[in-house]
């Protein structure tokens, strides 16, 4: 152990906390307390798994419902598109024929 005389400067001085030295020994937790805490933690995790399972089942059920709904709607939408396209082509035809009546045709011989 160093004596006061052997310390040459203040930089060599260290606190008790810095040198990790304690005046009393660290208190040990009993095995029973440790067991209790682990049991509690396990219960908490099991509960968490349970709620995650419930959430998973709910999401799966919702996805199934969404798929069914989408299928129905896509059929309706396809029908609507057909109607729109038909109307558009008819309008186009009308426009074409209407315009053709207005055009004066001249032959460009070559």
């Amino acid at each position, binding site marked *: 152990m160093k004596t006061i005389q052997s310390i040459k400067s203040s930089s060599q001085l260290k606190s008790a906390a810095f040198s990790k030295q304690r005046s009393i020994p660290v208190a040990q937790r009993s095995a029973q307390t440790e067991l209790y805490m682990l049991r509690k933690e396990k219960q908490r995790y099991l509960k968490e798994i349970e709620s995650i399972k419930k959430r998973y089942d709910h999401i799966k059920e919702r996805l199934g419902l969404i798929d069914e709904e989408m299928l129905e709607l896509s059929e309706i939408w396809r029908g609507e598109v057909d109607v729109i396209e038909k109307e558009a082509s008819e309008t186009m035809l009308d426009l074409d024929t209407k315009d053709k009546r*207005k*055009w*004066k*045709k*001249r*032959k*460009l*011989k*070559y």
Partner: protein
Amino acid sequence: MTDDRVILEPTPLENFVETPYIKEITTRAMSYIEAGYSVHFRGPAGTGKTTIAKHVANKLARPVVLLHGDEEFSTSNLIGSESGYKTTKVRDNFISSVLKEEQEFQKHWVDNRLTVACRFGFTLIYDEFTRSRPEANNILLSVLEEGIINLPISRAGEEPYLEVHPNFTGLFTSNPEEYAGVHRSQDALRDRMITMDLDYFDFETEVGITRAKSGLKKNEAAFIVAIVRKLRDSGKCEFSPTVRGCIMIAKTLKIMKKTPFSDKKNFIVICQDILASETSRVGSRTNQNRVKKLLQEIIEETYKAVA
């Protein structure tokens, strides 16, 4: 829009000659059009650029809008412009003691040929487009690349961007050898279309055309074409004689009720008159005499070969 709108329908004449050479060019052009590109026929005078463009337009079976390149053209000559005013006057005298008058003036927009072709999906034949100034043709860049026409926003109730109809096709012709009244086409425009460089027709096609246009017999037409082709191949003329020269000679003979074999002296004079002027730009006496002499030699040689 104009009320007196005219569309053209390309129709081949009864005597139109479609040889394998013409068919091959037409098929190639049609493939490019099918691939979604506009086609540019480039070649010297008398190589059939315009006729082939019309023939391709005929094959497309769509109405045709024809434009001829002009120095005076501006963008409005292609897309259209405001012409006159449209007025609306509302006179409200529902309550006899109150008179309300409203008057509105609107500029009247008139579509021009390019806009008409793009709007309705017609085929545009832009003949000798390099005769128009490049800045006038700038509007074609967006038509050929983005498929839109950028129109002035001041047009009442009209969209500023007109989407080009999917059936729109552009057929362009130009002569790179022309020196008078032409401009260089901008690289960007040339890059947006497929250019087909046309050369003079083959012998068979030239004979067919000459025969069809004049009504001469096949051997008579072939004799004229052989002379013109020999003069062309000699490379001694300022300008190569074209199939038009063949037609001119053949038609003149037909009118005179003569053939190349019935009156040799007369035939030589006709050939010299037509071909000496066709092959020189300035028409100097020295040059004319040189071509006439050369022509006489070629004709004599051809007579000997036939005999």
